[in-house]
């Protein structure tokens, strides 16, 4: 007999628990059968992709191009997903994440910009597809840089690790600023390659060129679509990792590193993997940036940006890979929403000033969040088992039966 029997506790009913809107949504979603989830998920993603075409009047930004804002959101979302692997899942505080973003962007820049001494567009990288070919190279380079940073530093914990990674972020930026012969120093690298596709008389350099400003399918929209596709791929991979030995090892390390080690988790190895994967995703985002802006220079990779990425992760909810995407949206969208706006619901405001003070507002928001909701807006409920669904389904069925809601259960027992 392998049935579990219930202890007779709970003589009186507990007070009804309070459930927030997010919890209700999550409960509703996880109770849906798989086909329904697909049926809702696919149109939802299609709607997201259609945003720059629809340009809903409430959402559309005024001061900047909406497509461009969404493209930037795509990059930040990737950064947030990558940083979430390191900070949210493995619990390693990385304050120099912008360094990986920079390495990804500069690798593409160095390989494809005419300003770079290592420009390869005329040799073995084809002119049309240089960006696409540079992408895996850049990811590999950032992954190796993650390994180089991680190997000596991951023996440190907590604050010490945070400080060392902060230093790493600065080192990368200072190198970009000072290796004038290679990176162009403060002048940066311009003319970076982008995919040459969809060339027409009106779009002479293809749809991905910064010269494509034909609304609504301007270059921002196209880059947004590329990043959306990459986000989906990355989410699938990260989800696979989460529901595996790797994801469980990360969460175990986050919860109690010593206990994890004693339970047989090779903690150093998996921390290094977390760093490497986080770095690769950050590098990927950098590659997108280089392609879209077609110009890289050191100020873009200021350490303050690291804080902004971290802000996206913390606001979204550490450990929740969908939550951090929303966090990234908030971080990118809100300043752009205010930019160029002179009134909000009839109230006159100085939108540009509000956008300028974004660091102040995000700082205040972060502090408020730490006090009232330290787990973030969308706290994590990770599912860490590949086949765990069976257990949850069985447990749910049993719970329903116990509550007398399933006809299969005993009616007389229920009432």
């Amino acid at each position, binding site marked *: *007999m*392998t*049935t*579990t*029997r*219930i202890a007779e506790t*709970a003589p*009186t*009913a*507990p*007070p*009804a*628990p309070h*459930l927030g809107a997010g919890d209700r949504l*999550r*409960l509703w979603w*996880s*109770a849906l059968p798989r086909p329904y989830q697909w049926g809702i998920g696919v149109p939802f993603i299609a709607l997201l992709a259609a945003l720059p075409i629809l340009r809903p009047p409430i959402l559309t930004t005024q001061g900047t191009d909406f497509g461009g804002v969404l493209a930037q959101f795509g990059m930040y979302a990737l950064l947030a997903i990558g940083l979430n692997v390191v900070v949210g899942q493995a619990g390693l505080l990385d304050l120099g994440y912008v360094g990986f973003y920079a390495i990804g962007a500069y690798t593409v820049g160095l390989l494809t910009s005419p300003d770079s001494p290592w420009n390869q567009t005329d040799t073995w990288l084809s002119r049309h597809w240089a960006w696409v070919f540079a992408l895996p190279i850049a990811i590999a380079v950032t992954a190796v840089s993650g390994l180089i940073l991680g190997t000596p530093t991951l023996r440190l914990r907590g604050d010490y690790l945070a400080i060392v990674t902060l230093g790493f972020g600065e080192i990368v930026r200072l190198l970009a600023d000072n290796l004038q012969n290679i990176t162009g120093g403060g002048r940066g690298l311009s003319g970076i390659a982008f995919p040459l596709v969809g060339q027409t008389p009106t779009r002479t350099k293809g749809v991905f060129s910064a010269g494509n400003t034909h609304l609504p399918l301007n270059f921002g929209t196209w880059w947004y679509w590329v990043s959306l596709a990459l986000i989906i791929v990355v989410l699938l*991979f990260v989800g*696979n*990792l989460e529901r*595996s*030995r*790797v*994801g*469980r*090892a990360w*969460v*175990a390390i986050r*919860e109690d590193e*010593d*206990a*994890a*080690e004693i*339970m*047989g*988790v*090779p903690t150093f*190895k998996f921390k290094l*993997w977390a760093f490497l*994967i986080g770095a690769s995703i950050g590098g990927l985002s950098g590659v997108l940036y280089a392609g879209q802006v077609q110009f890289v220079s050191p100020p873009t990779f200021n350490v303050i940006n690291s804080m902004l990425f971290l802000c996206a992760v913390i606001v979204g909810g550490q450990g929740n890979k969908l939550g951090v995407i929303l966090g990234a949206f908030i971080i990118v969208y809100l300043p752009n929403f205010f930019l160029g706006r002179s009134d909000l619901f009839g109230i006159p405001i100085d939108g540009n000033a509000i956008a300028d003070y974004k660091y102040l507002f995000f700082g205040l928001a972060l502090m408020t969040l730490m006090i009232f909701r330290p787990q973030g807006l969308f706290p994590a409920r990770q599912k860490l*088992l*590949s*086949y*765990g669904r069976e*257990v949850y389904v*069985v*447990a*749910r*069925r*049993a*719970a*329903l039966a*116990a*509550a*007398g809601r399933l006809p299969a259960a*005993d009616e*007389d*027992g*229920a009432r």
Partner: protein
Amino acid sequence: MSIGPNDPQAGAEHTDQHLGAEEYLTQDSVEEEFLPDGGVAQVAVDLADVDPVLADPEAVAQLVAPDRRIRTEVGAALLRMEAVTMRFGGLVALDGVSFEIRRGEILGLIGPNGAGKTTCFNAMTGVYRPTSGQVVFDGRPLGAIKRNQITRLGIARTFQNIRLFSDMTALENVVVGTDARHRTSVPGALFRSRRHRTEEQDALERGMALLEFVGIGRRATQKARNLPYGDQRRLEIARALATEPKLLCLDEPAAGFNPTEKAELQDLIRKIRDDGYTVLLIEHDMRLVMGVTDRVVVLEFGRKIADGVPAEVSSDPAVIAAYLGVPDDATA
């Protein structure tokens, strides 16, 4: 096989007239962490529903105690402490302690507070490296072996102050233990390799079987931090067993237990031994130690003062003196 709720009696127990809509909602998705414990959906999970393999009690037993390759013969020394000394600065926590744990026995390690029991434990599980002397496990000295490798060699432990992964569910906690025997790494998990899938299936089966074995199968989907204290202790044991140890070390597993729970724990420890595990038990509760162990080692001030069967040890004058003190007239 019967599912709890199919039994009218059980169904009546589980049903509560006062359940509000909120609770139904909660029970629906088994996200029980929203509920204060005690009122949590008290659900019987049928193992056979989770996985058909688990319908067969023999299969479950095999999952709980899989065949492990142990070089040591039954009755021979599985672990030997050889003159282990641990020094922390000027403090000598262990002073040339030697004893052995024989395969198949339950060994009790007792002593007054500060006698060095936990230090001894930590030296065995690789948390500390002995200042001198060595620990030999299953014919292999545990010199510079990493802690996670020691676990994979076959020593598992629980913690005196519970150290579960509190944000994970009970099942996930146990599965972290089973992962010690798994080899999937990032590439396998990324692309869902065949090995990854079989290992995940194995993790689920062994995880559920072990939760069932220690008696908390119904808590599988609850977060560890929301479990009642006693169940947390049981979960620690299940997690340690999940690593397929040759030697299971329990560090004060009965701390904070009432007599009933202690009796249940005693049964559980015996059951574990009968399944072919060797058990080292550190415990304060004399009745539990004397009741369950085959042999007892007594430490005092980092030295071994007695080693023998419980009856012998409990009448040993040195042990009585260590625990009760020596009357003034005896020392005079």
